Protein backbone atom coordinates (compact mmCIF):
# COMPACT_ATOMS: atom_id res chain seq x y z
CA UNK A 1 0.00 0.00 0.00
CA UNK A 2 2.75 2.40 1.01
CA UNK A 3 4.58 1.55 -2.22
CA UNK A 4 1.47 2.47 -4.25
CA UNK A 5 1.11 5.80 -2.38
CA UNK A 6 4.86 6.39 -2.88
CA UNK A 7 4.58 5.82 -6.63
CA UNK A 8 1.56 8.16 -6.71
CA UNK A 9 3.43 10.93 -4.85
CA UNK A 10 6.44 10.49 -7.14
CA UNK A 11 4.23 10.59 -10.23
CA UNK A 12 2.56 13.85 -9.18
CA UNK A 13 5.93 15.43 -8.26
CA UNK A 14 7.45 14.28 -11.56
CA UNK A 15 4.51 15.52 -13.64
CA UNK A 16 4.68 18.99 -12.11
CA UNK A 17 8.48 19.07 -12.37
CA UNK A 18 8.28 18.01 -16.00
CA UNK A 19 5.52 20.44 -16.93
CA UNK A 20 6.70 23.49 -14.96
CA UNK A 21 10.42 22.75 -14.56
CA UNK A 22 10.12 23.22 -10.80
CA UNK A 23 8.33 21.68 -7.87
CA UNK A 24 9.59 18.18 -7.14
CA UNK A 25 10.54 18.48 -3.47
CA UNK A 26 7.59 20.61 -2.40
CA UNK A 27 5.30 17.69 -3.38
CA UNK A 28 7.58 14.82 -2.34
CA UNK A 29 8.23 15.98 1.24
CA UNK A 30 4.66 16.89 2.34
CA UNK A 31 3.49 13.70 0.56
CA UNK A 32 5.86 11.54 2.60
CA UNK A 33 5.31 13.40 5.89
CA UNK A 34 1.53 13.82 5.71
CA UNK A 35 0.47 10.68 3.79
CA UNK A 36 3.12 8.14 4.79
CA UNK A 37 4.03 9.42 8.25
CA UNK A 38 7.75 9.68 7.41
CA UNK A 39 9.91 11.71 9.84
CA UNK A 40 10.70 15.22 8.50
CA UNK A 41 14.51 14.77 8.24
CA UNK A 42 14.20 11.39 6.54
CA UNK A 43 11.61 12.79 4.12
CA UNK A 44 14.06 15.58 3.19
CA UNK A 45 16.91 13.09 2.68
CA UNK A 46 14.76 10.83 0.48
CA UNK A 47 13.49 13.87 -1.43
CA UNK A 48 17.07 14.92 -2.27
CA UNK A 49 17.89 11.40 -3.49
CA UNK A 50 14.81 11.30 -5.75
CA UNK A 51 15.47 14.85 -7.02
CA UNK A 52 19.05 13.82 -7.90
CA UNK A 53 17.71 11.14 -10.24
CA UNK A 54 15.01 13.35 -11.76
CA UNK A 55 17.42 16.28 -12.24
CA UNK A 56 20.03 14.04 -13.93
CA UNK A 57 17.46 12.77 -16.44
CA UNK A 58 16.15 16.31 -16.97
CA UNK A 59 19.64 17.77 -17.45
CA UNK A 60 20.49 15.10 -20.01
CA UNK A 61 17.29 15.79 -21.97
CA UNK A 62 17.79 19.57 -21.96
CA UNK A 63 21.52 19.23 -22.72
CA UNK A 64 20.77 17.24 -25.88
CA UNK A 65 18.47 20.07 -26.95
CA UNK A 66 21.32 22.52 -26.20
CA UNK A 67 19.24 24.20 -23.52
CA UNK A 68 21.89 24.18 -20.76
CA UNK A 69 24.11 27.24 -20.22
CA UNK A 70 27.07 25.19 -19.06
CA UNK A 71 29.32 28.09 -17.99
CA UNK A 72 26.65 29.65 -15.81
CA UNK A 73 25.95 26.25 -14.23
CA UNK A 74 29.66 25.66 -13.58
CA UNK A 75 30.00 29.04 -11.85
CA UNK A 76 27.04 28.33 -9.58
CA UNK A 77 27.79 24.70 -8.66
CA UNK A 78 30.90 24.99 -6.37
CA UNK A 79 29.32 27.35 -3.82
CA UNK A 80 26.01 25.50 -4.20
CA UNK A 81 27.34 22.08 -3.22
CA UNK A 82 29.32 23.49 -0.26
CA UNK A 83 26.20 25.18 1.10
CA UNK A 84 24.06 22.13 0.39
CA UNK A 85 26.41 20.14 2.64
CA UNK A 86 26.33 22.88 5.31
CA UNK A 87 22.54 23.11 5.08
CA UNK A 88 22.29 19.37 5.74
CA UNK A 89 24.49 19.76 8.85
CA UNK A 90 22.31 22.63 10.11
CA UNK A 91 19.08 20.67 9.49
CA UNK A 92 20.51 17.79 11.55
CA UNK A 93 20.73 20.08 14.60
CA UNK A 94 17.09 21.25 14.30
CA UNK A 95 14.34 19.21 15.99
CA UNK A 96 11.72 17.76 13.61
CA UNK A 97 8.96 19.62 15.47
CA UNK A 98 10.64 22.91 14.45
CA UNK A 99 11.97 21.82 11.04
CA UNK A 100 8.42 20.99 9.92
CA UNK A 101 6.96 24.50 10.41
CA UNK A 102 10.12 26.01 8.81
CA UNK A 103 9.43 23.77 5.82
CA UNK A 104 5.79 24.91 5.96
CA UNK A 105 7.00 28.52 5.68
CA UNK A 106 9.08 27.55 2.61
CA UNK A 107 5.93 26.08 1.04
CA UNK A 108 4.02 29.32 1.58
CA UNK A 109 6.85 31.40 0.05
CA UNK A 110 7.12 28.91 -2.81
CA UNK A 111 3.38 29.13 -3.43
CA UNK A 112 3.56 32.92 -3.60
CA UNK A 113 6.58 32.84 -5.98
CA UNK A 114 4.70 30.28 -8.07
CA UNK A 115 1.82 32.70 -8.56
CA UNK A 116 3.69 36.03 -8.72
CA UNK A 117 7.19 35.05 -9.93
CA UNK A 118 8.79 35.95 -13.24
CA UNK A 119 8.60 32.73 -15.21
CA UNK A 120 9.89 31.78 -18.65
CA UNK A 121 7.22 32.35 -21.27
CA UNK A 122 6.54 29.77 -23.89
Amino acid sequence: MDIAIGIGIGLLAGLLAGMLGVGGGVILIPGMVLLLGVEQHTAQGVSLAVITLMALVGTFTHYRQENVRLRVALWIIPAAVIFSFLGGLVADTIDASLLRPIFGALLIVTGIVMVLGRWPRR
Partner: protein
Amino acid sequence: MRRQVLVCMLIGAAAGMIAGLLGVGGGIFLVPLLVGVLGVAQHQAHGTSLAVIAPIALVGAITYAILGHMDWALILGLALGGLVGVVLGARLMMRVPARQLRWIFGIFLVFVGIYMIIPWLGS
Protein backbone atom coordinates in the same frame (compact mmCIF):
# COMPACT_ATOMS: atom_id res chain seq x y z
CA MET B 1 32.26 39.60 -15.99
CA ARG B 2 33.73 39.43 -12.47
CA ARG B 3 30.46 40.73 -11.04
CA GLN B 4 28.65 37.98 -12.93
CA VAL B 5 30.82 35.30 -11.27
CA LEU B 6 30.17 36.79 -7.82
CA VAL B 7 26.43 36.82 -8.46
CA CYS B 8 26.62 33.17 -9.57
CA MET B 9 28.40 32.26 -6.32
CA LEU B 10 25.81 34.09 -4.21
CA ILE B 11 22.92 32.44 -6.04
CA GLY B 12 24.67 29.07 -5.63
CA ALA B 13 25.18 29.62 -1.90
CA ALA B 14 21.53 30.55 -1.37
CA ALA B 15 20.20 27.69 -3.53
CA GLY B 16 22.53 25.20 -1.83
CA MET B 17 21.54 26.34 1.66
CA ILE B 18 17.80 26.05 0.93
CA ALA B 19 18.30 22.62 -0.66
CA GLY B 20 20.44 21.25 2.16
CA LEU B 21 18.35 22.72 4.97
CA LEU B 22 14.93 21.83 3.58
CA GLY B 23 15.44 18.94 1.15
CA VAL B 24 14.14 20.60 -2.00
CA GLY B 25 15.91 21.24 -5.31
CA GLY B 26 15.40 24.98 -5.22
CA GLY B 27 14.36 25.32 -8.86
CA ILE B 28 11.53 27.56 -7.74
CA PHE B 29 14.11 30.24 -6.86
CA LEU B 30 16.80 29.31 -9.39
CA VAL B 31 14.70 29.65 -12.53
CA PRO B 32 13.50 33.22 -11.87
CA LEU B 33 17.02 34.26 -10.72
CA LEU B 34 18.67 32.76 -13.81
CA VAL B 35 16.28 34.68 -16.06
CA GLY B 36 15.92 37.90 -14.08
CA VAL B 37 19.41 38.40 -12.59
CA LEU B 38 21.81 36.48 -14.84
CA GLY B 39 19.98 37.07 -18.10
CA VAL B 40 19.83 33.41 -19.09
CA ALA B 41 17.53 32.96 -22.10
CA GLN B 42 14.10 31.80 -21.02
CA HIS B 43 14.21 28.53 -22.95
CA GLN B 44 17.55 27.69 -21.28
CA ALA B 45 16.51 28.48 -17.70
CA HIS B 46 14.94 25.09 -16.88
CA GLY B 47 17.84 23.07 -18.29
CA THR B 48 20.46 25.22 -16.59
CA SER B 49 18.66 25.07 -13.23
CA LEU B 50 18.42 21.26 -13.48
CA ALA B 51 22.16 21.06 -14.24
CA VAL B 52 22.78 22.96 -10.99
CA ILE B 53 20.19 21.03 -8.96
CA ALA B 54 21.61 17.57 -9.82
CA PRO B 55 24.94 18.05 -7.96
CA ILE B 56 23.27 20.08 -5.16
CA ALA B 57 20.74 17.31 -4.51
CA LEU B 58 23.40 14.59 -4.78
CA VAL B 59 25.66 16.20 -2.16
CA GLY B 60 22.61 16.92 0.03
CA ALA B 61 21.38 13.31 -0.23
CA ILE B 62 24.82 11.95 0.68
CA THR B 63 24.99 14.33 3.66
CA TYR B 64 21.55 13.22 4.90
CA ALA B 65 22.44 9.54 4.39
CA ILE B 66 25.66 9.90 6.40
CA LEU B 67 23.71 11.60 9.20
CA GLY B 68 21.23 8.69 9.21
CA HIS B 69 18.28 10.48 7.60
CA MET B 70 17.61 8.13 4.71
CA ASP B 71 15.09 5.43 3.82
CA TRP B 72 16.46 3.53 0.84
CA ALA B 73 13.33 1.40 0.26
CA LEU B 74 11.18 4.52 0.03
CA ILE B 75 13.36 5.95 -2.78
CA LEU B 76 12.38 3.11 -5.14
CA GLY B 77 8.64 3.82 -5.38
CA LEU B 78 9.05 7.60 -5.41
CA ALA B 79 11.81 7.52 -8.04
CA LEU B 80 9.80 5.12 -10.22
CA GLY B 81 6.76 7.43 -10.12
CA GLY B 82 8.94 10.51 -10.38
CA LEU B 83 10.86 9.43 -13.48
CA VAL B 84 7.70 8.35 -15.32
CA GLY B 85 6.07 11.63 -14.27
CA VAL B 86 8.99 13.78 -15.46
CA VAL B 87 9.02 12.18 -18.91
CA LEU B 88 5.21 12.44 -19.25
CA GLY B 89 5.23 15.99 -17.89
CA ALA B 90 7.94 17.10 -20.30
CA ARG B 91 5.83 15.78 -23.21
CA LEU B 92 2.69 17.49 -21.93
CA MET B 93 4.62 20.72 -21.27
CA MET B 94 3.65 22.42 -24.50
CA ARG B 95 -0.02 21.49 -24.18
CA VAL B 96 -0.84 22.59 -20.63
CA PRO B 97 -1.72 26.19 -19.71
CA ALA B 98 1.37 26.79 -17.53
CA ARG B 99 0.07 30.01 -15.99
CA GLN B 100 -3.17 28.53 -14.69
CA LEU B 101 -1.33 25.40 -13.51
CA ARG B 102 1.10 27.55 -11.51
CA TRP B 103 -1.81 29.41 -9.89
CA ILE B 104 -3.54 26.19 -8.78
CA PHE B 105 -0.24 24.64 -7.66
CA GLY B 106 0.85 27.82 -5.82
CA ILE B 107 -2.41 28.21 -3.90
CA PHE B 108 -2.36 24.50 -3.02
CA LEU B 109 1.18 24.89 -1.61
CA VAL B 110 0.17 27.86 0.56
CA PHE B 111 -2.59 25.74 2.14
CA VAL B 112 -0.29 22.75 2.72
CA GLY B 113 2.29 25.12 4.24
CA ILE B 114 -0.26 26.56 6.66
CA TYR B 115 -1.37 23.02 7.53
CA MET B 116 2.25 22.11 8.44
CA ILE B 117 2.67 25.21 10.63
CA ILE B 118 -0.59 24.96 12.62
CA PRO B 119 0.48 22.11 15.00
CA TRP B 120 3.62 24.06 15.91
CA LEU B 121 1.59 27.21 16.71
CA GLY B 122 -0.57 25.17 19.07
CA SER B 123 2.34 23.56 20.91
